[in-house]
């Protein structure tokens, strides 16, 4: 049985690149991601740099997993909307996106998801706030909703910035 180790980490959804970087640093040090759950990452001992790890926000899609596997990638698992893949380095470089268009549409999907959650929290917050006039408990829930909404709007801003940057690039090159 290969040696395993588990790490608990939290990443904001807009820091998905930071998460991916961390997973690849682990792989570079001989710990390849083998299983993933919410905030829980399980690694197996491998050679240094044996795998490259990639993650992508993608709707549940069996065909897509088969497609990725046919190109030599391994499907590790999924957490909410996020899919995790890895590929042996000896099989060649591993990226999910190879041009700006597909990278932009990926960030757009993430942007839409955060925006939807943010607006939902804002709406529920406002409803709770108006009920809160009659009950303190609802006022607390309202404040919580509005704080979450504010945080998510920060994430929306981060994704907007990224989309803008990529679209600027796109004006000049592919």
């Amino acid at each position: 049985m290969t040696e395993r180790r588990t790490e608990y980490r939290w990443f904001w959804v807009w820091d998905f690149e930071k998460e991916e970087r961390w997973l690849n640093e682990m792989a570079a040090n001989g710990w390849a991601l083998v299983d993933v759950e919410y905030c829980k990452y399980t690694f197996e001992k491998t050679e240094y740099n044996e795998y490259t790890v990639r993650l992508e926000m993608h709707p549940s899609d069996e065909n897509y997993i088969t497609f990725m596997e046919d190109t030599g990638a391994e499907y590790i698992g999924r957490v909410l909307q996020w899919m995790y893949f890895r590929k042996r380095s000896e099989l060649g470089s591993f990226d999910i996106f190879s041009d700006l268009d597909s990278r932009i549409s990926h960030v757009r999907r993430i942007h839409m998801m955060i925006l939807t959650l943010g607006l939902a929290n804002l709406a529920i917050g406002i409803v709770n706030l108006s009920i809160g006039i009659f009950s303190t408990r609802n006022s607390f829930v309202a404040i919580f909703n509005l704080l979450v909404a504010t945080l998510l709007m920060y994430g929306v801003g981060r994704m907007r910035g990224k989309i803008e940057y990529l679209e600027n690039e796109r004006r000049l090159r592919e």
Partner: protein
Amino acid sequence: MLENIVLTEATYYILLALYNPQHGYGIMQEVEEMSRGRVRLAAGTLYGALNSMVEKGWIVQLPVEDGSRKKNYQITAAGLEILNNEIERLRELVENGDAIIGGNNND
């Protein structure tokens, strides 16, 4: 097709690779070979491009053969027309580039 369509490099090479029936991984390999290793299509990009091109009717998915899980695709008449227009456009780009700086490039 009155609109002038400018294809991305990925779209162009995928259509070219689908002149003969081919599956996803085959497309990646063929494009890399054609471009002598320069163009490496990533799987997510390719998957998205294939789906949009099927939607537009530029390519079709062929019936899956028994015992195989690989889906083959092939270019359609509409896709071929798009591709031919693009080759024409690229020729113009290269001719103009050559005419203006092509001769002075080697000194």
